[in-house]
């Protein structure tokens, strides 16, 4: 395999709040290769957004990247100068967010904002940039682009606004597009349109894509590999079909069982309890208070990363000898309700 485009090693990002230090991202590592689509899934507070924002250092006070390494084509992003960082953001890595209409400036036309994005990255004269903006709008499937370019964001529907933002993100011809919940808040028929757009762009432009979402269905549509996060750590990662068909981590297993699915109208099996408070995370494996497989050993230390075939990894004691030698949980567990 060629050298990865992006390498994240043991990344730790914390928020220093009045209530104490919140370890939002606690030692995660992964790689993204050129042209690959990676889904980062997890519930709110799992650290999925923070982990990805840390890649381009979009973490503001009281948040701080404490340690770790982020390498973009071998170069450490955490040591880049502000100038290098500007070059990286937008030109090589672009990002789009949830709530598309909030990301657009209501006072300027959509066209003005795309032209601005083009000219921020390249020295292009106005007329040419405008032509390029129209082409980009056409590429993302906005009908009648030469007219749509002079409209204001409030004249765009949610799905159209998300397309306009994708056009803006494409202006710098990025090699990696990071999309943070890009379809959350959109209606399903509109979501389907936006997902199709992503699939097409990724194919045509051979662009790598990191998709952050809480929706496993969305990941199944688009991604080759999946990273499952729980309470600031990676619980499991691997190829999509392995994660869906043969999840190894008890969190992934219970998570899959708790999602109502179209192909499985039968009973759903909820995970008890709630994700932990990260200013005071549980000891050892952070999932142990809710885990059906937990033994005392799980409370003691962070679980080891176990690798399976096809590069599937689960951070869990269940696959170690010491777990099987360890006595079972002595008392019945008491769940914090909900």
């Amino acid at each position, binding site marked *: 395999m060629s050298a990865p485009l992006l390498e994240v090693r043991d990344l730790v990002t914390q928020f220093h709040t009045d209530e104490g230090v919140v370890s939002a991202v606690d030692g995660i590592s992964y790689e993204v290769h050129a042209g690959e689509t990676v889904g980062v899934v997890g519930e709110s507070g799992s650290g999925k957004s923070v982990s990805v924002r840390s890649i381009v250092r979009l973490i503001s006070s009281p948040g701080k990247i404490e340690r770790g390494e982020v390498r973009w084509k071998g170069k450490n992003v955490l040591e880049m100068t502000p100038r290098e960082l500007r070059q990286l953001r937008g030109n090589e890595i672009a990002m789009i967010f949830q709530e598309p209409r909030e990301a657009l400036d209501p006072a300027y036309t959509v066209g003005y904002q795309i032209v601005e994005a083009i000219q921020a990255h390249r020295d292009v004269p106005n007329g040419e940039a405008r032509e390029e903006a129209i082409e980009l709008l056409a590429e993302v499937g906005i009908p009648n682009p030469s007219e749509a370019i002079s409209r204001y964001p409030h004249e765009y529907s949610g799905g159209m606004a998300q397309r306009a933002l994708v056009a803006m993100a494409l202006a710098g011809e990025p090699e990696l597009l990071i999309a943070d919940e890009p379809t959350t808040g959109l209606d*399903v028929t509109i*979501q*389907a349109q936006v997902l199709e757009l992503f699939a097409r762009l990724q194919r045509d432009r051979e662009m790598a894509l990191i998709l952050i979402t809480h929706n496993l269905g969305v990941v199944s549509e688009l991604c080759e590999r999946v990273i499952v996060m729980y309470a600031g750590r990676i619980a499991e990662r691997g190829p999509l079909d392995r994660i869906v068909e043969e999840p190894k981590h008890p969190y992934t297993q219970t998570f899959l069982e*708790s*999602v109502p699915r179209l*192909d499985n109208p039968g009973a759903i099996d*909820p995970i008890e309890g709630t994700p932990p408070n990260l200013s005071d995370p549980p000891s050892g494996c952070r999932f142990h208070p809710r885990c059906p497989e937990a033994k005392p050993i799980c409370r003691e230390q962070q679980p080891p990363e176990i690798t399976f075939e096809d590069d599937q990894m689960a951070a869990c004691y269940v696959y170690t000898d010491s777990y099987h030698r360890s006595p079972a949980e002595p008392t019945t567990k008491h769940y914090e*309700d909900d």
Partner: protein
Amino acid sequence: MKTIETTADETEQPVLQVRNLKKYYPITSGLLNRHVGDVRAVDGVSFDLHAGETLAIVGESGCGKSTLAETLLRLHEPTEGDVVYRGQSLAELSGTALQRIRREIQMIFQDPTASLNDRMSVGRIVAEPLRIHGWDGDVDERVAELLEEVGLSPGDHHDRFPHELSGGQCQRVGIARALALNPSVLVADEPVSALDVSIQAQILALLDALQDEYGLTYVFVSHNMSVVRHIADRVAVMYLGRIVELADVETIFEDPQHPYTESLLSSVPDVGTERTDRITLHGSPPDPIDPPEGCNFHPRCPLARELAEDDRAKCETEDPALVSHDARDIACHFRP
């Protein structure tokens, strides 16, 4: 599949009969507030709700599903049409008679934190309907019983305030409040949409258990087809203020006939299924101020696009009525 146990008497009479219900919001303009048009949020909806069943109302934003839910409870005065509760027309009622029927139909809201008064303790929130409607028994005892019922601990949670609770716990409080007066119908407007997946599953399991225990009848408003598949017995699909298809859950999911239902279902991204048959709709739903002529759906309809010109003209000019075919109600000129 859930089986619905009903007595002979109940099968004869639906709990709720909704008849040609309309809710228009007038648009006014100018100094004299001249009436220039209407937003037709709910535009002639009829259905029966049977005891013990869960009827899901699905559709995209702006289709009128929430307005319909709120109009059922007469939180809005309907523009036209009627809701009949066990033979009693709500339009004919007012004052205490209406209040008495309102005890029977309760609502659960989407945003669990916003729907609770942050200055009241959990205990007071749940006790409030009991005080307003005059509870005969011991209020404290009833509140403790209700909290227990929804999986909260009376000792722990009674004196807490909503901001001290998680989203899932707040939704449990909302459910306890709705159950306080022993209603027979619960109208739930997107009750799990604001919750995380693992918490969603907990609340759905709770709603299931409560229905089994008390024989509750649910109207479940949702945009999430996977959740609907799990919880509903029958499904009404809405588009632009109207029901376009209504049938039992199996029929809707396994054999959708209305082109809108079909494309709505095929748009849902799902785990582990390869989509080869996706029907992607073009454009967005039209403006309910100025709905298209003929069938509301025709400008986006994949079926209409394939029809011969004469047939298509029918879609463009004639408004299809909701008619029964076997066990299904459908509003389409060419289906089934």
